């Protein structure tokens, strides 16, 4: 967007870094926060109000929400700054007494977040007014909020530093040797677990399945592998893992085994039948 706000010189003069640090020293144990919603989705608001509940109690270090920018030391700006909230934000910014600390709250406030290239937003608070503290998260959890506020007033030091990795060489990470003799087997299990249970639980399922198969003395023998799987399923308490392990055995393991020897995968001695699958729900 073409029009940009130029901070008036009288506000600029009163908002130097020294002034701000002096203000932070002065307000150390008691500071008032005014919350400006610049087109936020309300997720950030919910988290702000979650973090001022007695459970987290930011009033321990003097945090207080006020209803008027003229009472505020800190402006907490949420949202990607939509077109319509441009002037209200400037009014609140100019109304707040100098010097003032501006916190960009949430991913949207920091950089525009998921709306960064939208036509109707400015893509971040810092595109328009000078921002002092960036508090990312979508939305920031109460713990992050408390950390950000403590960082803003100087109780805690920030943890993040810019990292530039360089000269990593050309050696790729070593691929683990397949226990089945073919990495395509592992690849198919990984993709099947992702389809069945998603990436997070899929990884747990993968580990459980592979551990069970590895226990078998002969992994090319479907009867022995099935026996080990039944043992693993008996010990498993979650019915989702129970069922998915059986599906993997039927769909992936037996299919791959066919490339090594001729087997009949409908044989109930080798594969899990429908009755066996129903049993897990008792």
């Amino acid at each position, binding site marked *: 967007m073409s029009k940009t706000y130029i901070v008036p010189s009288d506000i600029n003069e009163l908002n130097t870094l020294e002034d701000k640090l002096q203000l932070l020293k002065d307000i150390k144990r008691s500071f008032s926060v005014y919350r400006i919603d610049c087109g936020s989705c309300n997720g950030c608001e919910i988290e702000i109000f979650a973090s001022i509940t007695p459970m*987290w109690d930011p009033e321990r270090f003097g945090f207080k929400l006020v209803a008027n920018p003229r009472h505020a030391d800190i402006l907490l700006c949420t949202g990607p700054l939509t077109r319509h909230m441009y002037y209200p934000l400037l009014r609140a910014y100019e109304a707040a007494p100098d010097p003032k600390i501006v916190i960009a709250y949430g991913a949207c406030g920091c950089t525009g977040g998921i709306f960064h290239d939208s036509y109707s937003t400015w893509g971040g608070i810092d595109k328009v007014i000078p921002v002092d503290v960036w508090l990312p998260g979508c939305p920031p959890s109460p713990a992050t909020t*408390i950390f950000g506020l403590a960082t803003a007033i100087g109780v805690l030091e920030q943890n993040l530093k810019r990292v530039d990795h*360089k000269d990593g060489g050309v050696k790729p990470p070593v691929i683990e040797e397949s226990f089945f003799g073919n990495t395509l087997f592992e690849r198919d299990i990984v993709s099947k677990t992702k389809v069945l249970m998603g990436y997070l639980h899929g990884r747990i399922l993968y580990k459980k399945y592979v551990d069970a198969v590895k226990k078998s003395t002969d992994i090319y023998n479907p009867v022995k592998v099935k026996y080990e799987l039944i043992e693993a399923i008996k010990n498993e308490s979650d019915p989702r893992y129970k069922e998915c392990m059986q599906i993997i055995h039927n769909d992936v393991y037996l299919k791959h085994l066919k490339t090594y020897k001729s087997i009949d995968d409908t044989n109930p001695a080798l594969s899990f039948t429908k009755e066996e699958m129903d049993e897990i729900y008792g």
Partner: protein
Amino acid sequence: MKLLDMTLKYGNATHDYPFSPYAVPEGFRGKPEYEYDLCIGCTACAVACPSNAMNVELNEAKDKLVWEFDCGRCIYCGRCDEVCPTGAIRLGQNFETAVRFNKEDLIETGELELEHCLKCNKAFTTKKLIAYCVQNFLKVGWTQEVIDEKTKYIQTCPECKKHDAAGLITDYKGARR
């Protein structure tokens, strides 16, 4: 006294967080942790990232591929974690992401060596990615002939592959005449 006993029984419901560490719950999605040694520069994370927090671009001198992550834009959806083939990106437990006075601290970058096309000598992907693929070929159980052919194929840039395909078709027609 009875009330005090009751409170003692139920314990502390409040968090003492900034003054004592806070244990995040299981499955918490914190800041994505980047493992530079594992990254092969396949750009899957950059494609998957819905908010473009992860970007992969050539650097200014056009001799390195730069992976860049802007924590300020990340929405913690975990899709980069999901698609990363080598586990270079995993969502961690770090929730203390606020920075003061310097926005650059939110950024993390990693430089990767570029691979040049066998035919046109133009840079098109990273050396690590090609080496990773070749390493994968050896464990799939193909014959040496197939591996050589495929290695050559992946060392050619997509543009050259397109021209090659056109060339093959014309050659074939010419042979028939």
